[in-house]
């Protein structure tokens, strides 16, 4: 299984209706169709899923761990985005 001919695919499985697809692992396959079949054999032998996505690993752009802090910093000082930030007067219902 040459990497050149058999690139890496990332596999996402929806476990049940109502849940989102979750990353479960990766595998090698020459094309999308075989990637799907391999994913079925590798990651859903025990009925772990009702739907599978396969994505060429090379098509994923990832943020760099080196800039984890600065990259996500803009969210750090916006506590007002969370409902717990707000003081709710006593006795208010349905808020």
């Amino acid at each position: 299984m040459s990497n050149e001919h058999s690139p890496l695919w990332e596999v996402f499985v929806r476990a049940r209706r109502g849940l989102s697809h979750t990353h479960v692992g990766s595998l090698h396959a020459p094309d999308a169709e075989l990637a799907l079949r391999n994913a079925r054999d590798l990651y859903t032998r025990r009925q772990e899923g009702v739907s599978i996505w396969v994505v060429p690993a090379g098509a994923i752009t990832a943020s760099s761990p080196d800039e984890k802090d600065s990259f996500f910093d803009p969210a750090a000082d916006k506590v007002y985005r969370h409902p717990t930030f707000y003081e709710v007067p006593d006795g208010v219902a349905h808020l």
Partner: protein
Amino acid sequence: MYGNDFSAPGDAPDHAPDDAPGAGLLGEVEAAEAELRAAAARQRRGGPAPDEDLAAYFTEVVDAEQKIEPRDWMPEAYRRTLIRQIAQHAHSEIIGMQPEGNWISRAPSLKRKAILLAKVQDEAGHGLYLYAAAETLGISRDELVQLLLDGRQKYSSIFNYPTLSWADVGAIGWLVDGAAIVNQVPLCRCSYGPYARAMIRVCKEESFHQRQGYEILHTLAHGTPEQLAMAQDAVDRWWYPSLAMFGPPDGDSTHSAQSMAWKIKRFSNDDLRQRFVDMCVQQAEVLGLRIPDDDLRWNEERQAYDYTQPDYDELMQVIKGNGPCNRERMAHRRAAHADGAWVREAAAAYAAKRADKREKVAA
């Protein structure tokens, strides 16, 4: 499910493999999974500060029982140790299909055959999860496969023993898979995230293997006198090689300390071996089979069983390539790889042709 990857003295020095506890194994796997989620939930800053010492940050993450992930900085020796250990583990799953595969066509019933097929397919799956985990460390699948075919990376020495009777399939499930689980459950807490996650998946599936083996032996042990004798013979032959799966005694184990500090390994070889023996004694009683050890007895003071150590000279001989089936296993793997070449080529050619067509349509 065969995770111990110690090497013979004189082999490239690296670090010892896996470790694991025993009782309520599935429970421990669940606990490890819950811990993994809890560790992920613990508030932590996202990464090292721009001017922070990366090695110090790595140590801090490991000490805090958090996971190292593929793109994090890690010491080169940590990366090498993991590649070697995970690869050896993956190779073991792949080679491990052979001893049992020998019995697929001769299983005593359609039910047993279907179960054994599913089990052997699981082993292939475990090998693939583990290869994928190793690849996150920056080595390619091709390289890993080639290292096995060239004999430059090892697999568990246990698979160099032959499966002489149907009862051996039972003994492998009960003892070999059992020892492997004891070895592997602690790996579910390994500091390297992809390995820990793969091991959780593997261990959950492994428990089916151990039970199916136990059931085979239980059925044989309660069958005709000939079947009972066959079951006992299998246990007699597999007991000591299974004990040897935990590796050399702690005093001779060269690379444990660093792996312990990195939280790759969590228990010593001897601790795990003891745990395995203590588990097996009662299980053997229920089977009505005898563990082939005249010196096996409860030690009240230690609250553990005293037992006879396996022959470590034999273990080293097998690791060095002189076991009963080393050559056969490698020859079979090489032939299977070569025989599959046309399938890989055909699939690649088909994929290329279709990609070509799509391009033309697009143009």
